[in-house]
C-alpha cells in the first residue's frame, strides 16, 4: 500500500489544520505507523472484519450482463455485502481498534450518504462509545433511512445547515467539534481525505478490498484483471480497490466521478477528469478542489450524496497526475440506467454511489474483448436509496403508499401525545 513522504503524495496531502488539532493528529500518526508494520495488528483487523462484517466479500461474475453487453467479462467486488451495507465499515472497524488503544470514550464522524455515519454508529454501539454524526441537512433529506438507523443505534445525528448543507459542511463542522473535544474524542474520518495521516490510514484499512481482489482473481480468473473500476467521491473505496495493484502496470485502474447534470459550475462533482479541479488547501489538506478564482470552495451536485464532495483524496490526485489512474465520469442519467440494468439483469441492488462505477465500468467493458476481465467495486448496496430511486422511477403505487403511511404515522404520534 502506498506510503506518504512525510504526509505528502507528490505535491498533494499535508496537514493544514488549526494548531489545536495537531497533537491528536501526530498521536494518531505515531500509533498508525507503529501498527501498520506489525503483522499481528493486520491479522487482528482482518479477523475482526471476518467475525463482524462477513469478510472476505465475494467476487461475483456477471455472466448474463457480460454476455448482453458483448464485451469483457464483468466481475463485481461485493462490498455491498458488508455488515452495514458498504465498504465504509472496513475503515471504521480499523479506527475502532485505534480508539480502543487510545482509550477515548467518544467518537465523531461526518457523513454524506450516511453509510459512514451508519458504520460509525454501529462501531460506537458495539464498543459502548458516545457518538455524534455530522450530516448536511440536505443529505439528511436524501438519505433519511440511514439517519433513522443511526438514531436507533444510539448515535446523535447533528444536522449541518450552513452553506450547501452537504458533505463539505459536515466535515467542517466535525473539525469544529474536534477542536473543542480533541482530548477525549476521536474523529473517525470516513474517507481518504483530510489532514495526514487520514488519507494514508483510511486507504490502508480499505486496502483489504484489493488484497482480496488479488487472491480471488488468481483463483477465479486465473490471472489479474485487465481493469479495476471504482466510483470516486472522497476516494476511500477507490483507494481500497486500487491500493494493492499500484505496482501492477498491466492492471488499469479507473476512477469514476459524479458527472451530475452537466459540467456547468455547481452541477457536478468532477475534480479529476476534466481539469475542473484546481490545486487548493482546505479542510486540512492540499488537493484538487472545485473552487472559484478567489479560492472559495464551490458547490457540487450528484444524485449520490456520497459523491457530492468538493475535494478528492490527495493520493488519487497524485496518482491521476502521474497517469497511474484513469479518471472518468458518469452523469446522473447514466447512473440510474446502470443501476436499473444491474438490478434487472443480475438481481443485485446497488447504491447510487457505486452505480457510478457500474456506469463507467459497463461503458468500458463494451469496448473490450470477451477474453478480458473488468472488476467493478460495488462499494455499497442500494436499500438506502429507496426514496431516491422511487423519485427517479415514479410509480403511482409508491406515492399512494407513502400517503397512507404518513397518515398512520401522524395518527400514532397523536395517540402517543394524547396519553
Amino acid at each position, binding site marked *: 500500500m502506498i506510503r506518504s513522504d512525510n504526509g505528502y503524495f507528490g505535491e498533494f496531502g*499535508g*496537514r*493544514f*489544520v*488549526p*494548531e*489545536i488539532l*495537531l*497533537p491528536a493528529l501526530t498521536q494518531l500518526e505515531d500509533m498508525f505507523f507503529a501498527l501498520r508494520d506489525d503483522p499481528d495488528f493486520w491479522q487482528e483487523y482482518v479477523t475482526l472484519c471476518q467475525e463482524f462484517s462477513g469478510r472476505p466479500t465475494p467476487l461475483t461474475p456477471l455472466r448474463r450482463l457480460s454476455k448482453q453487453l458483448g464485451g469483457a467479462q464483468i466481475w463485481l467486488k461485493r462490498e455491498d455485502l458488508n455488515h452495514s451495507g458498504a465498504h465504509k465499515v472496513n475503515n471504521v472497524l480499523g479506527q475502532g481498534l485505534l480508539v480502543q488503544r487510545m482509550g477515548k470514550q467518544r467518537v465523531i464522524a461526518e457523513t454524506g450518504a450516511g453509510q459512514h455515519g451508519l458504520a460509525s454508529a454501529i462501531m460506537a454501539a458495539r464498543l459502548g462509545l458516545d457518538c455524534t454524526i455530522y450530516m448536511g441537512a440536505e443529505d439528511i433529506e436524501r438519505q433519511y433511512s440511514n439517519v433513522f438507523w443511526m438514531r436507533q443505534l444510539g448515535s446523535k445525528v447533528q444536522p449541518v445547515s*450552513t*452553506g450547501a448543507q452537504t458533505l*463539505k*459542511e459536515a466535515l*467542517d463542522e466535525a*473539525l*469544529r467539534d474536534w*477542536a*473543542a*473535544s*480533541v*482530548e477525549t474524542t476521536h474523529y473517525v474520518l470516513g474517507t481518504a481525505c483530510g489532514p495526514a495521516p487520514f488519507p494514508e490510514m483510511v486507504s490502508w484499512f480499505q486496502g483489504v478490498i484489493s488484497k482480496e481482489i488479488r487472491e480471488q482473481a488468481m483463483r477465479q480468473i486465473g490471472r489479474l484483471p485487465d481493469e479495476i473500476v471504482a466510483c470516486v467521491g472522497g476516494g476511500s473505496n477507490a483507494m481500497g480497490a486500487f491500493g494493492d495493484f499500484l505496482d501492477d502496470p498491466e492492471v488499469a485502474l479507473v476512477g469514476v466521478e459524479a458527472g451530475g447534470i452537466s459540467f456547468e459550475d455547481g452541477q457536478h462533482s468532477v475534480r479529476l477528469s476534466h481539469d475542473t479541479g*484546481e490545486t*487548493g*488547501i*482546505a*479542510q*486540512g489538506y492540499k488537493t484538487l*478542489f472545485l*473552487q472559484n*478564482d*478567489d*479560492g*472559495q*470552495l464551490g458547490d457540487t451536485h450528484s444524485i449520490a450524496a456520497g459523491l457530492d464532495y468538493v475535494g478528492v483524496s490527495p493520493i488519487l490526485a497524485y496518482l491521476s497526475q502521474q497517469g497511474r489512474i484513469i479518471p472518468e465520469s458518469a452523469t446522473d442519467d447514466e447512473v440510474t440506467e446502470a443501476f436499473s440494468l444491474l438490478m434487472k439483469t443480475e438481481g443485485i441492488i446497488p447504491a447510487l454511489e457505486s452505480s457510478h462505477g457500474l456506469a463507467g465500468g459497463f461503458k468500458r467493458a463494451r469496448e473490450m474483448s470477451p477474453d478480458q476481465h473488468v472488476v467493478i467495486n460495488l462499494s455499497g448496496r442500494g436499500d438506502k436509496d429507496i426514496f431516491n430511486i422511487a423519485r427517479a422511477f415514479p410509480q403511482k403505487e409508491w406515492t399512494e403508499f407513502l400517503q397512507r403511511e404518513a397518515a398512520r404515522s401522524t395518527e400514532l404520534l397523536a395517540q402517543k401525545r394524547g396519553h
Partner: protein
Amino acid sequence: MFPAQHENLQIMSHAVVGFPSLEENEKAIAGLAEAGVRLIELQVPFSDPVADGHTLVNACYEALKHGGSVRATLDLAQKVCARHPEVTFVLMSYLNPLYRYGLEELFEKAAAVGIKGMIIPDWPVEEIEPWLPKLDALGLAPILMVTPNTAPERVEKIAHASRGMIYVVSRLGVTGHETQWGEKFRKYIAEIRKHTDLPLAVGFGVRTADDLNALTGKAEVAAFCSQYIEWQRDEGSEVAAEKMKKVISEIDTATT
C-alpha cells in the same frame, strides 16, 4: 505598531471584509478607530472557516454574498491603512484564498498597502518557516497561534517563527464561546512567556469587560472579535462602535 512586552492591555478587533457590506466596513473601521481600537484584523471571508464558531462562519457567508474576497480585502486595506495611520491592520485569512491568489504576490501587495501582520489559522509553522526571510524583508509579521495542548518544544518552534505578537488561543474549541481565566490559564501564559519576549494576544472567548479585566496584566492584547461582530450584526456598526468605546473605558477605569 505592535505593542511592546508588558504594555497595558489593548483590544484587537475585527472586520469581516464584505460583512455587512464593503461600504459598511469602512464606516465600521472608522468607528473602531474613533473608539480607541489600535489593532484591527481584516478577515478575508472563506467558504470553509473551520476554526471559527457560528458568528464568524455566518458573517463569512454573508460577506461572500456581498463581494468579500482577497482583492476586496487588499482594496479595503489600502484605504483604511492610509486613513487610520494610528491603527495597525492585520490580515486574517484561511490559507486557500491566499494560496489561490499566489502567496508571494499576496505578501508583497499586503505589505505595500500597509498591512503589518497576518493570522492564518490553518497554516502550520513548518509551512511558514521557509517564507520567513521573505516576510522579514517585507516587514510582514506572521502571528502564529499557540493552543493549550501545544507541547513546550512546539511552543519554542512557534515562538521562533512568530513576529510582532503570538496569538494565544485561550481554550480548546472554536471562536465565539466563553472562556475561564483562572489559575490554569495563568500557568499557561507563564509557560508561553518562558519561550518568548513577544507580546501575547489572547483570543477565543473574550466577550465582556470582565474578560478584559481578567486579562489585564496577563496579556498585552485581547482579541475582541465575535462579540463585536454580533453587535455589528444585531445593532449596526455605529452602536457596535459605541459599545466598544464603553468596554474600553471600563478597562481603563479598572486598571488605573
